[in-house]
């Protein structure tokens, strides 16, 4: 915020002029925000308490159903499973991204010739659109015995796997695609955080006879605390939004092992036309994301 002292009391005319200008500058965006954010949000909240249908049946009115949709979320197998799968997905993505991202950041945080090029290479999967990532990796995870990954397993005399068609492996497969796409970007964010750690600390550590591992645990990780929290929260929230791989590759299968929250709210609302139910899933999802955002504010606000 600007300091108050810098502001002189402006003549009324100036303020009036600026108010008018501000109104016109904000108007188009605010109309769009009302129509495409605020109204849909209000509809989501309102419809979540009704049995609203996409295509209303003749003679049947939308009725208020109270918490019925929310109760359904926690009692219907598939939707509950969608939340479970989504958490499981995040539980795979998040630790891998954080740990590997940090190690990778430390590994490329060297003044060696050409290291910048390697950083860009690690980042490059980010350039590949998720739909394409899904397509390419589905070929890697081909369930044929001579599929790419199965052939590699064969070298180590491991049985070929069904990958995306195996209820136990499908979700981890989908998670790997996302980790692959996303890791380099998180590495760069963490690399940025590393630059704020004073070199003196490492030199002091070296004088005290710290091993590389000691330095990593006692200097690097605490020094990265803020960046790690940021990465943690953004990866958690983004992984909760998983949709593309499911929609392109598995359609929620095999036996609902990859149904996720966003996929389920899409299916309930758009495919099955149950707007009320879909809205309730959406609002539950919103509350979840909001709680995580608030938690982040609390975590990062603590020692500032």
């Amino acid at each position: 915020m600007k300091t108050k002292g810098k502001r002189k009391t402006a003549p009324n005319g100036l303020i009036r002029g600026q108010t008018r200008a501000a109104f016109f500058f904000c108007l188009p965006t605010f109309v769009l925000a009302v129509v495409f954010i605020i109204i849909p949000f209000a509809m989501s909240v309102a419809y979540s308490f009704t049995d609203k249908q996409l295509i209303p049946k003749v003679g049947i009115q939308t009725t208020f159903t109270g918490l019925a949709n929310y109760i359904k979320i926690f009692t219907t197998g598939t939707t509950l499973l969608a939340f479970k799968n989504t958490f499981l997905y995040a539980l795979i993505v998040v630790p891998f991204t954080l740990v590997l991202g940090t190690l990778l950041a430390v590994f490329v945080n060297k003044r060696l010739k050409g290291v910048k090029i390697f950083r860009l290479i690690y980042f490059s999967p980010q350039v590949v659109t998720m739909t394409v990532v899904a397509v390419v990796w589905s070929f890697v995870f081909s369930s044929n015995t001579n599929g790419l990954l199965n052939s590699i397993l064969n070298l180590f005399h491991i049985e070929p796997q069904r990958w995306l068609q195996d209820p136990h492996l499908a979700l981890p497969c989908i998670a790997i695609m996302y980790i692959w796409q996303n890791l380099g970007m998180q590495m760069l964010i963490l690399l940025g955080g590393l630059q704020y750690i004073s070199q003196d600390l490492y030199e002091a550590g070296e004088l005290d006879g710290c091993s590389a591992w000691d330095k990593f645990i006692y200097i690097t990780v605490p020094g990265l605390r803020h960046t790690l929290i940021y990465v943690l929260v953004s990866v958690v929230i983004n992984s909760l939004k998983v949709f593309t791989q499911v929609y392109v590759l598995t359609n929620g299968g095999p036996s609902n092992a990859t149904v996720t929250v966003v996929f389920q709210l899409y299916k309930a609302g758009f495919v099955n036309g149950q707007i009320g139910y879909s809205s309730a899933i959406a609002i539950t999802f919103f509350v979840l994301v909001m709680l995580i955002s608030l938690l982040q504010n609390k975590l990062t606000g603590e020692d500032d």
Partner: protein
Amino acid sequence: MRTAMSKRKKLLLKICMYTGYILIAMVFIGPILFLVISSFKPYAQIESDMSNFYAFLPHGTLSFDNYSNVIRKMDFLKYFKNSAVVTILFMAAATILNAMVGYALGMLRFKGRKIIISVIVALSIIPTESIIINRFIVVNQLGLLNTYLGLAIPSVAYPMYMFLYYNHFRGIPSDLQEAAILDGAGYGTIFLRIMLPLSKPILTTVAIMAFIRSWSDLLWPTLVTRDGTYRTLPLALKTLFSDTYTDWGQVFAFSTLTVIPTMIVFLLFQKHFVASVTSSGIKG
């Protein structure tokens, strides 16, 4: 310490580092290489190469057949045009309109400024996914299904972009604006002639964010396109991929062509690209 380390040990360490760098690089670039190289192979070749190392090598008969098939038979150009129109519309509108809000909030003084800022912060918590079904219903009511406007406009007002701009503009010294006001310039002129030229880096960052977002979006086009006429590239690829018979060569050619524009933007604007992607890490 470094100086105590013998030269040979140092060299050995260096070799180890580079070996590590290269091995890791293969994990990241392998699938991309595989995609691009396979897009030049006929289907039979892809299949016979898939169980060995040739999958990553330009091996056997290579040709542009997949590409010419994708362009002639798969309507690639139509989908490309759709994606391009939607992305350009979205980029232009999102980059400028949100900048106007950021400028007003950061540099103009008016009543209710603080309230608007808190509203934007509140809105930024709402994930697009949680309102998308009802946003679709609104777009349907407005008669915008199956139109470029319906594809591009609904996500233009974007709290995170507004916030980025707000942070940028409130850092610009107000003297510049005051001098211009004394010279009799209107706020529209000040914004266009003084503020925008001063804001090129942030404009580029937001434009690239908007580009990536729009170019790769799959869910929204799924909801608002009824048939192939307005289908965008990711959705067309998904449809091509889901067909009962998948010709992998064509799928890979289609995929490669879909990624090329992003690749070009990345190579041209490396720094901005990285900044865009990393700062859009949260919320969407």
